[in-house]
């Protein structure tokens, strides 16, 4: 997968090997879902957070679990419910009866990888507490501020179908998630393989009885990477080159979301930043040392869509955010840019060569 012409440095090759090991480990447990794995790695390497939206039973929890074990990361899971309190996630001060002093009880957020399951079922106060911690990466309990461990990645999930008794995340809070990936059902071929593997699972003896094995039991506890390799991958992401042309593409797309007649709220500057960061990580995952338009087109839905809000009239006409974004992407290049005027036709002189475009752009 690595393009040798583009990624010739030893550090880059080591990172590519590290990524391949993670992919292979996840593939032993999760069938298909290569795109989700790629998005998880992008989130991990860029320090962004990811919201997975999909129906139950598409291996969201399994993915988070296998990723944490593959990288030897601490993993916590919180099932969000209506009666959850912020202190249930962040922690609290409790009175120690023996010493008559308060001591801090750290909540499950003090981990490397937090799975916030069905985040839209919690009250807005709890959502705000989590999202603030995601942004600040610091928690204040009592009078003491604690820094969250590094790396810190939140994988939140929400069910798009059941909306009764839920609190939809507003756009301003959705903006805190760098990616919102919409999980789909596996392809028929992947689903057949999934069923075959599940059929091979047996039972595990425990005490006097036995427990039916699940896919979680098949996860190899031996990690395939270290903290140092994660850090190296994060540094490699920052070394991926971003050309001025690519930045122009990003600005063009974000501006189209702001100027589209069907869109009430377009992408924020954070959307552009997230596009650049995630594109760099995707380029690294695909073995490139520079970003290309394919990265932008592949990530646009996950990065931009949850930051857009359609107008009421567009919704009444039956449009969806996906439709509008696809139209924007499809017409990029086909309709005049929203940023530059159309180039007037002219007769140019023939040149057999042109200066390198990338010579004039700043390195990443």
């Amino acid at each position, binding site marked *: 997968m690595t393009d040798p012409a*583009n990624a010739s440095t030893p550090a880059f090759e080591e990172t590519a090997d590290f990524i391949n090991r993670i992919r292979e480990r996840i593939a032993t447990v999760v069938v298909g879902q290569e795109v989700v794995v790629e998005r998880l790695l992008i989130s991990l390497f860029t320090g962004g957070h990811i919201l997975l939206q999909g129906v139950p039973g598409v291996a969201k929890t399994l993915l988070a679990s296998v990723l944490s074990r593959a990288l030897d990361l601490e993993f916590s899971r919180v099932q969000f419910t209506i009666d959850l309190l912020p202190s249930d996630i962040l922690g609290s001060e409790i009175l120690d009866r023996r010493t008559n002093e308060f001591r801090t009880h750290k909540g499950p957020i003090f981990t490397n990888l937090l799975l916030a399951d069905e985040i839209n079922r919690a009250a807005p106060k709890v959502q705000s507490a989590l999202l603030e911690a995601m942004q600040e990466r610091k928690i204040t309990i009592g009078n003491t501020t604690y820094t969250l461990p590094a790396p810190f990645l939140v994988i939140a999930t929400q069910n798009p179908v059941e909306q009764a008794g839920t609190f939809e995340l507003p756009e301003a809070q959705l903006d805190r998630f760098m990616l919102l990936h919409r999980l789909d059902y596996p392809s028929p071929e992947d689903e057949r393989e999934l069923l075959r593997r599940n059929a091979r699972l047996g039972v595990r003896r425990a005490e006097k009885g036995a427990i039916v094995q699940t896919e979680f039991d098949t996860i190899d506890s031996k990690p395939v990477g270290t903290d140092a390799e994660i850090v190296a991958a994060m540094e490699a992401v920052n070394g991926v*080159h971003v*050309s*001025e*042309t*690519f930045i*122009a*593409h990003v600005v*063009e797309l974000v501006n189209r979301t702001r100027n589209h007649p*069907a869109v009430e709220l377009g992408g924020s500057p954070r959307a552009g930043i997230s596009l650049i960061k995630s594109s760099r990580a995707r380029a690294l995952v695909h073995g490139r*040392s*520079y*970003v*290309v*338009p*394919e990265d932008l*087109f*592949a990530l*646009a*839905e996950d990065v931009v869509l949850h930051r857009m809000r359609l107008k009421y009239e567009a919704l009444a006409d039956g*449009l969806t955010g996906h*439709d*509008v974004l*696809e*139209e924007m*992407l*499809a*017409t*990029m*290049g*086909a*309709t*005049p*840019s929203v*940023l*530059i005027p*159309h*180039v*007037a*036709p*002219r*007769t*140019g*002189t*023939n*040149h*057999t*060569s*042109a*200066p*390198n*475009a*990338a*010579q*004039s*752009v700043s*390195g*990443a």
Partner: protein
Amino acid sequence: MTAAARRAAPLPLGPGRARVVGTLLAGLTLFVSTGFATNGRLPQDTSATSELVSPTVGAAAWLRDFVLPGGELEPAPVTLDTELIVRIAEVRAHGDAFRYDLSFYGLAPGTYDLRDYVRRVDGSTTADLPALPVTIRSVLAPGQVRPHRPLEREPPSVGGYRLLVGLACVAWVAGLVVILRSGKKSDEEAAAAARPQTVADRLQPLVERARAGTLSQAERADLELTLIAFWRERLALGSSGAARALATLREHPEAGPLLRRLEEWLHRPDPPETTDLDVLLQPYRNVAAEALPALGTSSEARV
């Protein structure tokens, strides 16, 4: 009849006596009613005329059958500075002189000589006229503030109301025509602007400028996206998602190499020393506009 009534009763008069009495009565009438008259008596004595009592400011006084020597007289032209206005109602010949019925009124208090406010019809001098002093009295107390001098104004416009209404109608119709014509023109311009721009329209100038090495950074980005749009339309990938379409293009035997070479030129930090854009973009120099549908109106590209 009382004694007073007897004193006021008219006496039988002869022709000469009646004339004298008439003159006295006329003078009395002038004095009382701000009028003044003489009955055909030529004022030879200027001291007698200076005794004539004149009216107050703005009140007219009359001189009837007033005989003045010399040629016929007429009022002198009036200016803004004229303070005594003389009007001659009737002129009759009287031997080698003329008999006048004239009136005058003053605009400011003071003593004036009527000679200064008349002139000969034949333009000869009026020096042979006797002095004709008149006094214009003021009923106001001394020291009253005089009104401002009348402002000189432009002469009234030519034409009047009907001409003004006519011109307004013409202007209204002309304005309506201009508005209708400009609206029609803007519709035509809007229709021209709404004409969908084909990919060829956009691609050709970009290719020419790329080969000339004069593309700006924004235009380089535009060139890349336009070429992607060109191939997406040519391979009819409009119904595919944009990401999937681009992935398909990168695997296409003709489009793939072009896009990869462009990516190397535009995005690699260490691109090849020179990129032969002349060869790379040669197939896109003469893309016929009619060969491609307008992508902007493609049903597949629209939501």
